[in-house]
Protein backbone atom coordinates (compact mmCIF):
# COMPACT_ATOMS: atom_id res chain seq x y z
CA UNK A 1 0.00 0.00 0.00
CA UNK A 2 2.97 2.30 0.35
CA UNK A 3 3.12 1.96 -3.43
CA UNK A 4 -0.34 3.53 -3.66
CA UNK A 5 0.99 6.67 -1.97
CA UNK A 6 3.86 6.80 -4.49
CA UNK A 7 1.36 6.62 -7.33
CA UNK A 8 -0.80 9.44 -5.97
CA UNK A 9 2.31 11.53 -5.36
CA UNK A 10 3.43 11.03 -8.96
CA UNK A 11 0.00 12.29 -10.03
CA UNK A 12 0.34 15.39 -7.86
CA UNK A 13 3.84 16.10 -9.17
CA UNK A 14 2.65 15.76 -12.78
CA UNK A 15 -0.34 18.05 -12.24
CA UNK A 16 1.80 20.66 -10.52
CA UNK A 17 4.27 20.61 -13.41
CA UNK A 18 1.35 21.07 -15.79
CA UNK A 19 0.10 24.00 -13.71
CA UNK A 20 3.57 25.57 -13.93
CA UNK A 21 3.52 25.24 -17.72
CA UNK A 22 0.06 26.85 -17.81
CA UNK A 23 1.24 29.68 -15.52
CA UNK A 24 4.19 30.28 -17.85
CA UNK A 25 1.79 30.43 -20.82
CA UNK A 26 -0.44 33.00 -19.09
CA UNK A 27 2.54 35.03 -17.91
CA UNK A 28 3.89 35.11 -21.46
CA UNK A 29 0.58 35.71 -23.24
CA UNK A 30 1.94 39.09 -24.45
CA UNK A 31 5.63 38.22 -24.74
CA UNK A 32 6.92 39.32 -28.12
CA UNK A 33 10.69 39.08 -27.71
CA UNK A 34 13.21 36.41 -26.90
CA UNK A 35 15.33 36.70 -23.76
CA UNK A 36 18.16 38.26 -25.84
CA UNK A 37 15.84 40.94 -27.22
CA UNK A 38 15.27 39.47 -30.68
CA UNK A 39 11.75 39.48 -32.17
CA UNK A 40 10.07 36.09 -31.70
CA UNK A 41 6.62 35.73 -30.11
CA UNK A 42 6.35 33.21 -27.25
CA UNK A 43 5.09 29.80 -28.34
CA UNK A 44 2.48 28.09 -26.19
CA UNK A 45 3.78 25.06 -24.29
CA UNK A 46 1.85 21.98 -23.20
CA UNK A 47 2.83 19.26 -20.72
CA UNK A 48 2.35 15.79 -22.18
CA UNK A 49 1.52 13.05 -19.68
CA UNK A 50 2.33 9.37 -20.00
CA UNK A 51 1.60 6.46 -17.65
CA UNK A 52 4.40 5.09 -15.49
CA UNK A 53 6.89 6.83 -13.23
CA UNK A 54 10.54 6.54 -14.31
CA UNK A 55 11.62 8.16 -11.04
CA UNK A 56 10.18 5.39 -8.85
CA UNK A 57 12.57 3.27 -6.84
CA UNK A 58 11.08 -0.17 -7.60
CA UNK A 59 10.39 -2.06 -10.81
CA UNK A 60 6.69 -2.31 -10.00
CA UNK A 61 6.59 1.38 -9.14
CA UNK A 62 8.02 2.37 -12.52
CA UNK A 63 5.01 0.87 -14.28
CA UNK A 64 2.41 2.63 -12.16
CA UNK A 65 1.65 6.29 -11.70
CA UNK A 66 2.05 9.11 -14.19
CA UNK A 67 4.82 11.43 -15.34
CA UNK A 68 5.38 14.38 -17.65
CA UNK A 69 6.93 12.73 -20.70
CA UNK A 70 7.59 15.94 -22.59
CA UNK A 71 6.84 19.66 -22.66
CA UNK A 72 5.94 20.37 -26.27
CA UNK A 73 5.67 23.58 -28.24
CA UNK A 74 2.23 24.24 -29.68
CA UNK A 75 2.63 24.31 -33.48
CA UNK A 76 -0.51 26.37 -34.00
CA UNK A 77 0.23 29.54 -36.02
CA UNK A 78 0.80 32.84 -34.21
CA UNK A 79 -2.09 35.26 -34.15
CA UNK A 80 -1.82 38.37 -36.28
CA UNK A 81 -2.74 41.81 -34.95
CA UNK A 82 -3.01 44.92 -37.08
CA UNK A 83 -0.51 47.34 -35.51
CA UNK A 84 1.11 49.34 -38.31
CA UNK A 85 2.96 51.57 -35.82
CA UNK A 86 4.79 48.69 -34.18
CA UNK A 87 8.49 48.35 -34.99
CA UNK A 88 7.84 44.62 -35.54
CA UNK A 89 5.01 45.06 -38.06
CA UNK A 90 5.38 43.34 -41.46
CA UNK A 91 4.86 45.08 -44.84
CA UNK A 92 1.08 44.98 -44.44
CA UNK A 93 1.16 46.32 -40.88
CA UNK A 94 0.50 43.05 -39.02
CA UNK A 95 2.37 41.93 -35.91
CA UNK A 96 2.58 38.29 -34.85
CA UNK A 97 1.55 37.71 -31.21
CA UNK A 98 1.76 34.51 -29.11
CA UNK A 99 -0.69 31.69 -29.92
CA UNK A 100 -2.04 31.77 -26.37
CA UNK A 101 -5.68 32.09 -25.41
CA UNK A 102 -5.79 32.98 -21.70
CA UNK A 103 -9.36 31.64 -21.34
CA UNK A 104 -8.25 28.21 -22.57
CA UNK A 105 -5.30 28.35 -20.18
CA UNK A 106 -7.63 29.19 -17.27
CA UNK A 107 -9.85 26.20 -18.06
CA UNK A 108 -6.80 23.94 -18.29
CA UNK A 109 -5.57 25.31 -14.95
CA UNK A 110 -8.91 24.44 -13.37
CA UNK A 111 -8.73 20.92 -14.76
CA UNK A 112 -5.18 20.51 -13.45
CA UNK A 113 -6.26 21.74 -10.00
CA UNK A 114 -9.20 19.30 -9.93
CA UNK A 115 -6.97 16.42 -11.02
CA UNK A 116 -4.52 17.39 -8.27
CA UNK A 117 -7.38 17.27 -5.76
CA UNK A 118 -8.44 13.84 -7.00
CA UNK A 119 -4.92 12.58 -6.33
CA UNK A 120 -4.98 14.15 -2.87
CA UNK A 121 -8.27 12.34 -2.14
CA UNK A 122 -6.73 9.05 -3.31
CA UNK A 123 -3.72 9.63 -1.03
CA UNK A 124 -6.00 10.47 1.92
CA UNK A 125 -7.96 7.26 1.35
CA UNK A 126 -4.76 5.25 1.27
CA UNK A 127 -3.63 6.93 4.49
CA UNK A 128 -6.90 6.07 6.26
CA UNK A 129 -6.53 2.46 5.10
CA UNK A 130 -3.01 2.37 6.54
CA UNK A 131 -4.33 3.76 9.81
CA UNK A 132 -6.90 0.94 9.89
CA UNK A 133 -4.17 -1.62 9.43
CA UNK A 134 -2.04 -0.02 12.17
CA UNK A 135 -4.95 -0.12 14.59
CA UNK A 136 -4.81 -3.90 14.37
CA UNK A 137 -1.70 -3.72 16.52
CA UNK A 138 -3.40 -1.78 19.30
Amino acid at each position, binding site marked *: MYGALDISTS*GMVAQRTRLEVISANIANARTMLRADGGYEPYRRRTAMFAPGDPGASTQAGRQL*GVHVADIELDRAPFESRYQPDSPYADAEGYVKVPNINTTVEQINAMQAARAYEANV*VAAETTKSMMAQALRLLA
Partner: protein
Amino acid sequence: MIKDLNSAGALPTLDAMMRFAGARQRVIAHNVANWDTPNFQPKDVSVSEFQRSLGEAVARRRAFNGGMVGDLPFEGTREVRPTRGGGLELRPETHTGGVLAHDRNSTDLERLLQDMVENANVYRVAADFMRVQTQRLHAAIGERVA
Protein backbone atom coordinates in the same frame (compact mmCIF):
# COMPACT_ATOMS: atom_id res chain seq x y z
CA MET B 1 -1.24 -25.11 18.00
CA ILE B 2 0.80 -21.92 17.60
CA LYS B 3 0.55 -22.21 13.81
CA ASP B 4 -3.23 -22.43 14.09
CA LEU B 5 -3.40 -19.12 15.95
CA ASN B 6 -2.94 -17.23 12.72
CA SER B 7 -5.20 -19.44 10.64
CA ALA B 8 -8.11 -19.87 13.03
CA GLY B 9 -11.70 -19.16 12.06
CA ALA B 10 -12.21 -16.41 9.52
CA LEU B 11 -8.69 -14.95 9.83
CA PRO B 12 -7.30 -16.32 6.52
CA THR B 13 -10.35 -15.06 4.62
CA LEU B 14 -10.07 -11.61 6.23
CA ASP B 15 -6.38 -11.66 5.45
CA ALA B 16 -7.10 -12.35 1.77
CA MET B 17 -9.72 -9.57 1.72
CA MET B 18 -7.30 -7.05 3.20
CA ARG B 19 -4.51 -8.04 0.85
CA PHE B 20 -6.84 -7.78 -2.12
CA ALA B 21 -8.21 -4.37 -1.13
CA GLY B 22 -4.69 -3.11 -0.35
CA ALA B 23 -3.37 -4.20 -3.75
CA ARG B 24 -6.45 -2.90 -5.56
CA GLN B 25 -5.95 0.52 -3.97
CA ARG B 26 -2.75 0.75 -6.03
CA VAL B 27 -4.65 -0.05 -9.21
CA ILE B 28 -7.28 2.59 -8.46
CA ALA B 29 -4.67 5.20 -7.48
CA HIS B 30 -2.96 4.52 -10.82
CA ASN B 31 -6.23 5.15 -12.66
CA VAL B 32 -6.82 8.38 -10.71
CA ALA B 33 -3.26 9.58 -11.43
CA ASN B 34 -3.88 9.01 -15.15
CA TRP B 35 -7.26 10.66 -15.13
CA ASP B 36 -6.25 13.06 -17.92
CA THR B 37 -3.37 11.22 -19.57
CA PRO B 38 -3.98 11.05 -23.34
CA ASN B 39 -4.63 7.54 -24.74
CA PHE B 40 -5.00 6.06 -21.25
CA GLN B 41 -7.68 3.38 -20.82
CA PRO B 42 -8.35 2.56 -17.16
CA LYS B 43 -8.20 -1.11 -16.19
CA ASP B 44 -9.29 -2.68 -12.94
CA VAL B 45 -9.46 -6.20 -11.51
CA SER B 46 -12.83 -7.91 -11.42
CA VAL B 47 -14.09 -7.85 -7.83
CA SER B 48 -16.90 -10.32 -8.51
CA GLU B 49 -14.43 -12.86 -9.93
CA PHE B 50 -12.23 -12.50 -6.88
CA GLN B 51 -15.23 -12.86 -4.61
CA ARG B 52 -16.38 -16.02 -6.38
CA SER B 53 -12.91 -17.54 -6.20
CA LEU B 54 -12.59 -16.60 -2.52
CA GLY B 55 -16.01 -18.13 -1.83
CA GLU B 56 -14.95 -21.38 -3.49
CA ALA B 57 -11.77 -21.43 -1.39
CA VAL B 58 -13.82 -20.94 1.79
CA ALA B 59 -16.14 -23.79 0.75
CA ARG B 60 -13.14 -26.08 0.11
CA ARG B 61 -11.66 -25.23 3.48
CA ARG B 62 -14.98 -25.98 5.15
CA ALA B 63 -15.28 -29.31 3.37
CA PHE B 64 -11.77 -30.21 4.47
CA ASN B 65 -11.94 -29.58 8.23
CA GLY B 66 -15.14 -27.74 9.03
CA GLY B 67 -13.52 -24.37 8.45
CA MET B 68 -12.23 -23.83 11.97
CA VAL B 69 -8.48 -23.99 11.32
CA GLY B 70 -6.03 -24.26 8.46
CA ASP B 71 -4.82 -22.16 5.57
CA LEU B 72 -7.20 -20.97 2.90
CA PRO B 73 -6.70 -22.91 -0.37
CA PHE B 74 -7.08 -19.79 -2.50
CA GLU B 75 -6.06 -20.47 -6.08
CA GLY B 76 -6.52 -17.00 -7.50
CA THR B 77 -8.30 -15.80 -10.59
CA ARG B 78 -7.33 -14.69 -14.07
CA GLU B 79 -6.23 -11.33 -12.64
CA VAL B 80 -5.40 -12.11 -9.01
CA ARG B 81 -2.52 -14.47 -8.31
CA PRO B 82 -1.30 -15.51 -4.88
CA THR B 83 2.47 -15.03 -4.56
CA ARG B 84 4.96 -17.20 -2.73
CA GLY B 85 5.18 -14.80 0.22
CA GLY B 86 1.44 -15.01 0.88
CA GLY B 87 0.60 -11.77 -0.91
CA LEU B 88 -1.57 -11.17 -3.95
CA GLU B 89 -0.34 -9.99 -7.32
CA LEU B 90 -2.91 -8.10 -9.38
CA ARG B 91 -2.90 -7.94 -13.16
CA PRO B 92 -5.76 -5.61 -14.05
CA GLU B 93 -7.34 -6.48 -17.40
CA THR B 94 -10.99 -5.50 -16.98
CA HIS B 95 -11.80 -2.28 -18.82
CA THR B 96 -13.77 0.10 -16.63
CA GLY B 97 -13.87 3.20 -18.80
CA GLY B 98 -16.90 5.17 -19.82
CA VAL B 99 -17.25 7.38 -22.85
CA LEU B 100 -14.10 7.92 -24.88
CA ALA B 101 -13.13 11.60 -24.77
CA HIS B 102 -11.32 13.44 -27.57
CA ASP B 103 -7.96 12.73 -25.95
CA ARG B 104 -8.72 8.96 -26.24
CA ASN B 105 -9.05 8.67 -22.48
CA SER B 106 -12.18 7.01 -21.12
CA THR B 107 -11.72 7.51 -17.39
CA ASP B 108 -14.88 8.26 -15.41
CA LEU B 109 -13.67 10.11 -12.33
CA GLU B 110 -16.93 9.68 -10.39
CA ARG B 111 -17.00 5.91 -10.91
CA LEU B 112 -13.32 5.75 -10.07
CA LEU B 113 -13.82 7.54 -6.76
CA GLN B 114 -16.85 5.35 -6.02
CA ASP B 115 -14.66 2.27 -6.58
CA MET B 116 -12.04 3.77 -4.29
CA VAL B 117 -14.51 4.45 -1.47
CA GLU B 118 -16.02 0.97 -1.77
CA ASN B 119 -12.57 -0.59 -1.79
CA ALA B 120 -11.55 1.39 1.31
CA ASN B 121 -14.75 0.21 3.01
CA VAL B 122 -13.96 -3.44 2.22
CA TYR B 123 -10.54 -2.91 3.74
CA ARG B 124 -12.05 -1.27 6.79
CA VAL B 125 -14.60 -4.04 7.33
CA ALA B 126 -11.91 -6.74 7.04
CA ALA B 127 -9.64 -4.82 9.42
CA ASP B 128 -12.45 -4.35 11.96
CA PHE B 129 -13.41 -8.03 11.89
CA MET B 130 -9.78 -8.97 12.26
CA ARG B 131 -9.37 -6.67 15.22
CA VAL B 132 -12.38 -8.28 16.91
CA GLN B 133 -10.80 -11.70 16.40
CA THR B 134 -7.46 -10.63 17.83
CA GLN B 135 -9.16 -8.95 20.79
CA ARG B 136 -11.01 -12.19 21.48
CA LEU B 137 -7.69 -13.99 21.35
CA HIS B 138 -6.20 -11.48 23.79
CA ALA B 139 -9.14 -12.01 26.15
CA ALA B 140 -8.70 -15.78 26.01
CA ILE B 141 -4.96 -15.53 26.69
CA GLY B 142 -5.56 -13.06 29.50
CA GLU B 143 -7.91 -15.37 31.34
CA ARG B 144 -5.60 -18.33 31.16
CA VAL B 145 -2.44 -16.58 32.26
CA ALA B 146 -3.69 -14.05 34.77
